[in-house]
C-alpha cells in the first residue's frame, strides 16, 4: 500500500477548509481556494481537502468507481466506511451521479440528506448558470465545465424537494464552491 500524507498542518488546514465550505454553503456559487494538501490521483486538491475535512469514521461514504485509485488513501485518512449510495452521508464522484440514488432526508430530519462532492473540470469557465435564493442578495452567475448539459433542470427537481434534498460541493483543482438544496438554478 502506498500512502501519502493528508493536510500539511492537519488542524489549521482542516479548519480553513471547513470555513470555506461553510461560507460557500452560505453564499452559493462563491469560489474558494484550498491550500496545504497534496491530493492522490484522480482526486483534485479541493476534493481531497473537503473529504478530509468532512468525512470521518462516523460518516458512511459512497465513492464512484472512477475514484478507485484513491480508495486506500480515503479509507486511511477518513476511516469512513464505504457504502452504497442510498446509505451514505457523503458521496464523491468525478461526474454528476443520479441524485435520486442518495438519501434526501425527511421532513422531520432534513439534515440526514447526503452531501455529494462532485469533481468537475473547471469552476472558472464553461456552461453558465444563474443562481438565486437564500444567501444571494442579487442572482449570481456560476460557470462550470463538467456538469451535464441539462444540469439546471435536474437540479430544479432536487430543489423542489426543499426542506429535503441533496447538497452539492463542486471542486476543480484547488477551487471549490457549494450548491445547497435551497438554491434555485437556471441556465444563463
Amino acid at each position, binding site marked *: 500500500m502506498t500512502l501519502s500524507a493528508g493536510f500539511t498542518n492537519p488542524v489549521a488546514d482542516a479548519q480553513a477548509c471547513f470555513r470555506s465550505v461553510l461560507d460557500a454553503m452560505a453564499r452559493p456559487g462563491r469560489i474558494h481556494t484550498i491550500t496545504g494538501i497534496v491530493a492522490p490521483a484522480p482526486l483534485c486538491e479541493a476534493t481531497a481537502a473537503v473529504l478530509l475535512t468532512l468525512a470521518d*469514521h*462516523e460518516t458512511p461514504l459512497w465513492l464512484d468507481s472512477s475514484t478507485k485509485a484513491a480508495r486506500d488513501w480515503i*479509507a486511511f485518512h477518513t476511516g469512513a466506511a464505504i457504502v452504497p449510495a442510498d446509505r451514505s452521508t457523503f458521496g464523491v464522484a468525478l461526474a454528476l451521479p443520479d441524485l435520486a440514488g442518495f438519501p434526501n432526508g425527511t421532513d422531520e430530519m432534513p439534515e440526514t440528506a447526503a452531501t455529494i462532492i462532485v469533481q468537475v473540470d473547471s469552476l472558472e469557465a464553461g456552461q453558465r448558470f444563474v443562481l438565486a435564493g437564500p444567501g444571494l442578495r442579487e442572482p449570481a452567475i456560476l460557470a462550470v465545465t463538467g456538469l451535464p448539459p441539462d444540469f439546471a433542470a435536474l437540479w430544479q427537481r432536487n430543489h423542489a424537494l426543499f426542506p429535503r434534498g441533496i447538497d452539492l460541493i463542486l471542486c476543480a483543482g484547488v477551487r471549490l464552491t457549494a450548491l445547497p438544496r435551497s438554491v434555485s438554478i437556471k441556465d444563463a
Partner: protein
Amino acid sequence: MAYVAIKGGEQAIDNAHAWLAEERRGDTATPALSVSQIQEQLGRSVDRVMAEGSLYDRELAALAIKQAQGDLIEAAFLLRAYRTTLPRFAHSVAVETGSMRIERRVSAIFKDLPGGQVLGPTYDYTHRLLDFSLLGDETVAPETETAAGHVGTMPRVPDILGHEGLLEADAPSSREPGDLTREPLTFPAERDVRLQALARGDEGFLLGLGYSTQRGYGGSHPFAGEIRMGEVSVEIEPAELGFDIDIGDLIMTECQMVNQFKGSKTVPPQFTRGYGLVFGFGERKAMAMALVDRAMRAAELGEDVTAPAQNVEFVLYHSDNIEATGFVEHLKLPHYVDFQSELQNVRRMRKEAAE
C-alpha cells in the same frame, strides 16, 4: 413575545471567577495538590468521574476533579464537555469480561466456585472507624502479602451455571447497538441503550432505585451471582489494517445479579439476570446498575410494571446527572420576565377573588 436580552455583570463574573480560582487553591501555606496525587490517592473519585463522564482517561478525570474542587458531578460535566471535542476513531470489539485479569471476584451464591472467592483491595470487613493515623503523612507497609497460587482469568458464573438451563442464557445478536452520544433517547428503549444510559448514570440515583427494588417496589429477589473487577484489554479493528489490534487495558467492574423468575407461558421457571458493567472500581454502581437493569426488564419478562425502577422512561429520563444538574440549576438563571407575568396573574386572581 420575544426574549429580552440583558447585558451587564461582566465585571462581577470576572471577579467571581478570580475568587473561585483563589478558593480552589485554598491556603497557600498548604502545598498544592498535584493531578498525579489525585490520580493515585483518590482513585475511587477518579473511577466515578470516568464512569459518569463516560470517558476513560484517569489523568483527565483527576484534572477535572482538581478543577472542580472535588465536586464530582461538575468534574463529570467537564469530562463530557472535553469528550465532544475529540474525533471518534473506532468502536471497540465488545470487551471479553471472561478474560478479565481478576483483582477481585466474589460470588454470594456459590462458596466453592472455580477460581475461588478473591477479595481484592476491598473496604468490606473494615470496621468503619476513622483511622487517625491517616491524619499524618503515614507510611504504608510497602508490600502486602502475596501468595504463590495464581489468580489470572476465571470463568464467569453464568458460564458455570448455564449448563443446567436453570439460568437464563445470553442472547447474542449482531445488531448494531444504539448510541446515546449520537442519537437522542427515544422510546421504547432497547436493552442496549438502557445499559449505556445506566453505565453513565448517576451512582446515587441508581443506588436509590436499586435499593427500592429490594424494599418491595418491584421486588425481584436478587442475589449477587458474581462481582468481578480487574483489567480487561480493548481491541479495535482499524479500517487500514483489517484485523483486530489490542490497544491497552481498562479497569472495569462487572456485576451479575441473579433473580428468581416464576416463569411465563413460554419460559419455564428459572433464574433471570440483571447486568452491570462500569469503568473503574465501581462495585456499588455496578450492583445498583444490575438491579435496575433487571427491574427494567419487567415488561419483557411479562411481569407487572408497577414500581419506579421498572418504569423505563422514568429511569432513563432522570438517571443522567449532567442533564439533571443542567435543568435543576438553570432555575437560578434570570427568570425576571416569567416571574413578572406570574406575579401579574396572581395579583389579578386575588383581585378577582376579592371582588
